[in-house]
């Protein structure tokens, strides 16, 4: 029951995208987000989509994986689209009872849906091709300048890494507790949907408690290996920036700039 929920999890591989420096991928996603929010032109979005298509091809991922990452947001996309179609004022196309569909509404719906899909697509590509540890290493290095103003960047990155690492564990744990409770007469299957959701509540307390227990064990294990925080720590894995990264980032930059340019000339 919990298996399908591990979305956007790292898919090991050696493709071009996998081998890019995590910083490149984080910056690229950041640039694309700016481009998607800063421009509202269909052609601009098309440009971004083209780039994503190509990257997906380069990443050599099973399409099913990507689809699984995108599927959960489809409902969100649909709802946003519908609200926009029916509520925006403007040039009326058709009337359906009390509802009107306007040209502006349809355009907005398409734009917003596309934006959402492209956003999630880009981030899913990143998380699928970057190991969680790499991702946090990348973030830590990118935000290292904040250490000067005493922001605990290393600790925050570590927190993120641990959180990511324990997501699958959490699902396994939920599965275990559910099996144990079902074996002793707890009922997760019958009743109406609200009833079944309510039956999940007794699952949460043990899940919480067991997470704290795990945290304690992990802290003990880290202290046993003399972990004392970020200061003075050296790295085993070093990030390496290569020409490949410079070129890739330049390309993304170009696409972003292209999107803005297209908007400026009114496409």
């Amino acid at each position, binding site marked *: 029951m919990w298996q399908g929920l591990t979305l956007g999890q790292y898919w090991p591989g050696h493709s071009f995208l996998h081998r890019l420096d995590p910083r490149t991928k984080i910056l690229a996603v950041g640039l694309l987000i700016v481009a998607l929010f800063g421009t509202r032109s269909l052609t601009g979005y098309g440009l971004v989509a083209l780039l994503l298509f190509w990257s997906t091809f380069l990443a050599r991922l099973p399409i099913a994986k990507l689809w699984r990452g995108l599927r959960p947001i489809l409902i969100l996309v649909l709802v946003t689209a519908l609200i926009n179609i029916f509520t925006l004022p403007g040039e009326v196309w058709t009337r359906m009872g009390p509802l009107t569909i306007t040209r502006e509404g349809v355009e907005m719906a398409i734009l917003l849906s596309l934006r959402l899909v492209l956003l999630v697509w880009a981030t899913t590509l990143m998380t699928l091709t970057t190991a969680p540890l790499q991702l946090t290493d990348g973030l830590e290095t990118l935000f290292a300048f904040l250490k000067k103003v005493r922001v605990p960047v290393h600790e925050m990155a570590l927190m993120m890494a641990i959180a990511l690492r324990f997501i699958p564990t959490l699902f396994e744990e939920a599965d*275990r*507790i559910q*099996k*144990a*409770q*079902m*074996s*002793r*007469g*707890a*009922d997760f*299957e*019958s009743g109406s949907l609200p009833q079944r959701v309510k039956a999940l509540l007794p699952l949460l*307390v*043990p899940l919480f*408690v*067991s997470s704290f*227990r795990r945290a304690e064990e992990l802290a003990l294990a880290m202290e046993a290996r003399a972990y004392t925080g970020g200061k003075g720590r050296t790295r085993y894995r070093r990030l390496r920036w290569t020409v490949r990264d410079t070129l890739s980032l330049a390309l993304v930059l170009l696409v972003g700039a292209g999107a803005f340019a297209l908007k400026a000339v009114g496409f």
Partner: protein
Amino acid sequence: MSLQLEEVFFRYEDQGPWVLEGISLEIPRGSTLGIAGGTGSGKTTLLMHLNGLLLPQKGRLLVDGEDPHDPHLSRQKRAARRRWLRRHVGLVFQYPENQLFEETVEKDIAFGPKNLGLPEAEIQARVERSMAALGLSFDLKGRSPFQLSGGQMRRVAVAGVLAMEPEVLVLDEPTAGLDPLGRQELLQLLLTWKKDHPLRTIIYVSHRMDEMALLAERLVVIHRGKIVAQGPPARLFLQEDLFRWGLEPPPTAQLLLGLKTRGLEAQVDRLDPREVALAIARARQKGAPCGKA
């Protein structure tokens, strides 16, 4: 209640090898069944079918002749039957830490009875009764089950299932991690439970054949997801080569087999040490060749 498996197939991965491959097994009401098999032979997987935690992918499970997963039933009806099944088949998990989840020992043992909708006083009585039966001190009631020793955890896990007073008690290697005394006590407890409730069923998984000899009326050996032998334990131990399935006959059986190759044949029905000793003594009195040695 009686349980029956009909040609059950199961695997964990879609294209993977079958973990259960055509298991057919009848477990009449009131019987004591032992299940043995090497590591990874599919015992735990089989047990999870018996209380509906896993569904057969081919074949079916019959509970008193009815299939709780029958696709012709409505969803609600199926859910009701499965709930009924889980409340009457009590499964003690192989690893107690997988079974325990509440904050305190008391709450954990009370979880099952609570789901049965029993009154508070009855729940309390059952908690204390099953703790006492397993030799758990009441001081432990307020402790977290995860702050217990492995053996204590095991006892709490068994107590939690016993408190439901299941009609079928299923135990997955319940003596693993217990000291010899604890092992003896648990086996005695099961024997007493069985004697007090002759119509209830025990299904017992273990690697230790001496426990099987003591407890099981019938022993089923599974190997790579198939049943390869079944019958009364004493007969299997003396007639089959258990080693090829990764099992070892109990010392008493090995002794009898050894004596037999030297020409001393002792007749026994049960393989507990006392009875075997008597049988050997009887055989020697008849003037067997062993006496000359």
